[in-house]
């Protein structure tokens, strides 16, 4: 089987394959242009008579559960990243598959982390055929060098849900790591040693996978409350000593930045939002857990306090800073997609206004609407932006896969998307003539805030007008690019081959761009 075939130029002007790992895929048609018809995918019909009446689905170990679930060659195995770099489950699954001599599995994680470097030998020996999910660190390098047997597919969190609903990815076995579960399979992320907040990334898998295994180190008698994952979808429950390493689960940046340059960017971002009226009583925003984003949250709360306003809701990635805003009454709700520290976990457990969400509620393309487009201000990062405001979040300027897409593409649908980014990092300008990899069409990005000036997308004439009297250093994106090159010099192009190693999906499941092999 060829990794890919039948290249076409899509609506974004990028060359993409339409046959990927032997399956047909649709090229990007434009934002909001692709609307598939027909019916969603569904699992085989199950009957309760086939499951124990006492509700006890506990199996002695993961290996037996995987064998019972029918693990065999070429299956699709899904895992989730709510344990982040402290995940102990995914590696075990493939250790077992390797031991059983199983080949050509498709790994479908919601994201991978550096701890999954352990899986490289299984990519080499054919246990795993390819990965559909984010590839960072060593896995990113492995894929970028063209070593993977199949083509990598990167999707957003919302896009992953859509791919499952469309039957584009049929999950054979979903293995859900749970900080707390009962023998019936109800599970949550707020209690237990490995408490990580919520299990939203596993929701689609629990509903659509043929077989669902819940693995926990905190097995409690029925019922495990709250049941973020419902046991009615679960086939087997496995009790292990440890599902994750707590100190590595809490791996997001939980401190505000101390860098004066990043603080300046954060301050300018908040000033921009204030000057252009983006912040108002009852507004909503989404900010990540990076140091700069957190600092923006602090500046936002100062503006809210000063005006005696509050935010209606904060979309998060939560940690102690949004939690503090919630507890101080500066926000009514946190709608949380993942929790980055123990304050976040505690708040979610105890405060009914700190609500867990899932890619379905927040991002789902096939939902009858979703939260993403209701958010006023969205703060995101990027590795590169080009002079047409196209943005890249997955590859470094040298071409290597570096980050997953995460919820990044989905949140772009907020009313105003702002990228606060340094104009250059270690001499490498962030603003380029053309992004190495296209993850967001320029029409989705509204504002770029750098330490040396703010560029507003010409499509946002309203913001350009409002920013005129602000006294803030508004420049064109071309001017910012020239300034970066004056300081850093003009970089060469990365050395990329013609061979495609992975593709980037848009939120609707179409193929937005190709990632090319890096030549040494």
């Amino acid at each position, binding site marked *: 089987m060829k990794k890919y075939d039948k290249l076409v130029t899509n609506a974004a002007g990028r060359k993409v394959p339409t046959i990927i790992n032997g399956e047909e895929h649709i090229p990007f048609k434009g934002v909001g242009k692709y609307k598939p018809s027909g019916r969603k995918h569904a699992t085989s019909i199950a009957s309760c008579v086939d499951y124990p009446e006492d509700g006890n689905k506990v199996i002695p170990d993961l290996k037996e559960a995987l064998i019972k679930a029918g693990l065999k060659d070429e299956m699709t195995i899904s895992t989730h990243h709510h344990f982040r770099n402290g995940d102990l489950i995914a590696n075990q699954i493939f250790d077992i598959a390797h031991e059983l001599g199983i080949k050509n599995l498709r790994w479908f994680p919601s994201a991978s982390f550096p701890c999954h470097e352990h899986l490289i030998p299984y990519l080499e020996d054919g246990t795993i055929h390819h990965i559909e999910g984010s590839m960072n660190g060593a896995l990113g390098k492995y894929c970028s060098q063209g070593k993977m047997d199949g083509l990598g597919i990167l999707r957003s969190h919302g896009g992953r849900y859509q791919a499952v609903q469309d039957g584009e990815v049929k999950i054979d076995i979903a293995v859900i790591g749970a900080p707390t579960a009962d023998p019936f399979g109800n599970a949550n992320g707020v209690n237990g040693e490995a408490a990580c907040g919520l299990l939203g990334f596993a929701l689609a898998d629990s509903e659509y996978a043929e077989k669902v295994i819940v693995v926990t180190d905190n097995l409690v008698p029925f019922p495990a409350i709250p049941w973020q994952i419902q046991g009615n979808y679960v086939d087997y429950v496995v009790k292990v000593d440890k599902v994750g390493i707590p100190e590595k689960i809490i791996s997001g940046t939980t401190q505000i930045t101390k860098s*004066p*340059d990043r*603080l*300046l960017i954060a301050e300018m971002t908040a000033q921009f939002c204030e000057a252009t009226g983006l912040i108002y009583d009852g507004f909503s925003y989404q900010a990540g857990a990076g140091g700069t984003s957190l600092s923006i949250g602090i500046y936002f709360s100062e503006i809210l306090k000063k005006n005696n306003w509050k935010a209606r809701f904060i979309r998060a990635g939560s940690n102690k800073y949004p939690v503090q805003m919630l507890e101080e009454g500066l926000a009514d709700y946190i709608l949380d997609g993942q929790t980055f520290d123990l304050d976040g976990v505690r708040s979610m457990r105890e405060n009914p206004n700190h609500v867990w969400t899932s890619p379905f509620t927040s991002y789902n393309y096939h939902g009858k609407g979703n939260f993403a487009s209701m958010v006023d201000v969205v703060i995101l990062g990027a590795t590169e932006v080009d002079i047409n405001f196209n943005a890249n979040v997955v590859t470094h*300027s*040298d*071409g290597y896969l570096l980050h997953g897409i995460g919820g990044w593409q989905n949140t772009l649908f907020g009313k105003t998307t702002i990228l606060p980014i340094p104009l250059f*990092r*270690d*001499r*490498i300008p962030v603003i380029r003539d053309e992004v190495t990899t296209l993850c967001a069409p320029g029409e989705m990005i509204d504002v770029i805030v750098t*330490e*040396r000036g703010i560029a507003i997308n010409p499509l946002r004439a309203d913001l350009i007008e409002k920013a005129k009297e602000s*006294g803030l250093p508004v420049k064109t994106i071309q001017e910012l690019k020239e300034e970066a090159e004056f*300081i*850093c*010099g003009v*970089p*060469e192009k*990365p*050395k990329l081959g013609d061979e495609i190693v992975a593709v980037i999906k848009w939120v609707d499941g179409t193929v937005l761009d190709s990632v090319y092999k890096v030549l040494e």
Partner: protein
Amino acid sequence: MDNTGFAGNEGTGVRSDARVSIQLLKSGGIQIDLKSKVKTLFGKQIIRLAEEIIHFFDIQHARMDIVDAGALDFVLAARMEAAIKQVVSSEKEFLLPQPEENKNGTLKDKFRFSRLYLPGNSPKLMINAGIHQPNGLILDLEDAVAPDKKYEARFLVRNALRSLRFNGAERMVRINQGEAGLKDLDFVVPHHVNLILIPKCESAEDVITVNERIQQLRKQHQTEHQVWLMPIIESALGVIKAYEIASACEQVAALAIGLEDYTADLGTQRTNEGNESFFARSMVVNSAKAAHIQAIDSVFSDVSDMEALAENVKRSKNLGFDGMGCIHPRQIKVIHENFAPEPKEIEKARKIVEAFEIAQKEGLGVVSLGSKMIDPPVVKRAMRTVELAKSMGKI
């Protein structure tokens, strides 16, 4: 001369810098080995720069090793030249072009609320310093540079003066004491430095020696703009000699005090309240004003406590200081806000200036506001306040 030379830094935590070593060889031509985190995008340019510099110094056979952590060209060039000059004796200087924006002169009485110290051998801290908009940026060759790094720092500071974006900040250098300081001048005066800080001044002589060397270099290099001086008083003796130092020559634009060394000299501890330095600060202010120059306060060393800084700035302003030093970019805004004239002050100044303008128009010799006569120095000060308020967007 040795046949190996090296300069710069490498290792974890080092960014925007490079470590360059060179070894002269008997044969084999030029070999360059580059390790760089930006090799894909800038590798060719870095090698080209190395070749150009090696050629510039007429080296035929050598091996150069570069370990680069994203250094800009001016940093790389400084490291390469500092390494090369340990193995090759040469009077030549390898200079990158100096943009026009780094060639301007400054006025003697330019506002100098804030001046940010930058360690002279730390490129990482230099690159973005200008964006925080201090009134002055000090490339420090003195206390912030370790003794074994003094040599290479001169090349870096020289190149930074030429290439760094100062974003309108005055280009300042703090030189070393004594002979070393005079040698430092060779590296900065020909490259449009605006102001020299002279550390640990204890006599007019200290200032005059520096000034004479500067004037000699200006003549030799035909530099157009004046180089201003800011002597720093850092000892009990210096305080006693403050007026003599302030009035040592026409080029002295400001007199500064350095309290860390001063309190050590007194044998006491520096406190936030500053009672122990009240006399010294007053002496410096009084001497500076007697010599018609600016008085500049010491840095405030607790970079995490912005409230204490604000208090300190207010005290400083009330004592008569015109500005103070800072060691962290986040201090700049606090210093500016608290040195800035208050609305009441601005309003009063505006009325005085208006009265002065009316008096001028009507050809009156005396300016009066209401029933009060206004003296010329008060008018002058009011004009300055108005100018300042305008420049800070407060009018």
